[in-house]
């Protein structure tokens, strides 16, 4: 497995696809494939040695999660994006610094290629998060 990681800042947020598929069913395949992704620039993909659609592992101080990579032609290196949802939450912290709001944006993250690793379903995430992922 390639050991090279790429440092970035993770931003999580709304996407059209995530909003639309949540109405089809939060447990549907469509929803899963719309939230279990990480959008990044072409350079980052090149350094990681992956192509669009390949699995990528994101690691923060809180944990790690494997999702599909998605090319964002307009993105700059250093900032990656994940749609809101159970996968992004797996690696986000709940410290609110006294204002009630956890850090959903601007979280330091390291990306690694994750060949032969599959993206976990929401059911899996719920069970696995008990003992760490």
């Amino acid at each position, binding site marked *: 497995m390639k050991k090279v990681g790429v440092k970035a*800042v993770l931003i999580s947020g709304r996407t059209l696809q995530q909003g639309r598929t949540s109405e089809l*069913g*939060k447990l549907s395949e469509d929803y899963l494939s719309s939230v279990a992704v990480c959008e990044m620039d072409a350079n980052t993909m090149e350094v990681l040695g992956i192509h669009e659609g390949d699995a990528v592992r994101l690691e923060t101080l809180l944990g790690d999660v494997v999702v599909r990579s998605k090319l964002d032609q307009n993105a700059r290196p250093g900032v990656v994006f994940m749609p809101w*949802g159970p996968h992004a*939450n797996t690696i986000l912290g*709940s410290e609110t610094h006294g204002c*009630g*709001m956890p850090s959903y*944006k601007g979280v330091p993250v390291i990306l690694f290629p994750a060949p032969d690793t599959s993206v976990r379903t929401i059911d899996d995430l719920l069970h696995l998060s008990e003992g760490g992922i």
Partner: protein
Amino acid sequence: MICCIYPREGFSISSKKTVKNVPCVFCGCLCDDIALEVENNRIVKNINGCSLSKSKFLNHLEDRLLGPAVRINGILVEVSLEKAVAHAAEALTSARRPLIYGLSSTENDTHQEAYYLAELLGGVVDNTSSVCHGTSMIGSQESGDPLGSLAEVRHRADLVVYWGSNPQFAHPRHISRYIRQPGEYMQNPKKDRKIWVFDVRSTATSRIADEFFQIEPGTDLEVISVIRALVRGHEMDIDRVGGLAIEDLAKISEAMKSVRYGVFFYGLGLTQSKGQHRNVDAAIRLIQDLNSFTKWVMIPMRGHFNVAGANETSTWQTGYPFAVDYSRGYPRYQPGEYSAVDLIRRRETDVLLNVAADPVAHFPRDALEHLKRIPIINLDPKRNVTSLIAEVNIPTAIAGIECDGAAVRMDGLPLYLRKIVEPPEGIIPDRDVLKLIIARLRMVTKR
């Protein structure tokens, strides 16, 4: 217990109607020009709605929770509504620190019952704004609320700023309905009304904007503070801030001072980024400064269709917009103390009553760890991630589709929601389920 619900018996296939001027119950734009075609108690066509709206209305019968269910020996078992309510009431009365959470995807009358229940229980009531625009509330409590209305923006604005907001994805008709439409004092909005986007990444909105200013993540406060300083005529002794040249920021501040009517729409890119309520606080002060030169207003881009309503009703009834604790018998407010994520993270909450939200899908990992250990009573029309681990699931009617009510648009305008179709057999609105829980609780506790 779960699947797509098919039309109820008693509706003939020929029962068709068109309902006009329906408010869309997806995002905070609450577009009230939706026309729906209904056949046999099912919405089959949505005219005027964006793709999010179409997805919500056309799939209203998909993936529903079919009936009340209670977890017995780890398995959800279908029970009568009465039994589910009794189970919920028992869990709530035996809790030491119950939390009522959600409320942003339902209507205002439900909120009223939720506050009453929180008071009866001596519990905490919080809405989903604590993880979206709660920091906007804190910011405006410190600095004021220079709010404008969307109609005024459409008629007057000649400069529209979106800061940390991507309406093309989150509020798809915001630009087409309010910004690109001509108004009383704006005949040619495509030419005379400019759109500027400030964001940390290129988005679908930044790509259609007249100007895009890409700032470095976590520098909103610095950038806004420098614009403020420049607006007030101060000299800067640095060359760049947040990735932008001071020279460019000077042009930005001059342009902001010289428009006729400016509007500052801000999203979670501002409220959730480093600085949080301080970012909003700085933005409010910038708008106040700009009002010494010309007219500026600011409007939060509220996400869920009635999250603004949750803040308003909470303020009317408890005195505070979110994170309200009744444990001493009177309402106390302290974000960071009584906000949902903090209570759950600190393992204080011992029962969660979730109304029309999905905290298991949207709360960070260690909050989720605790949610898995406590009883959750989940009121929602559809299967959601929370329903998977809930101890009690009570399906409810979809507000604005299967029951009426009121909701509040992102600019504070209350709108009356419509009942378009009948809810599935035996399914009642959130407000009525809460009333049943309250009645049961009063019966048990003799309060």
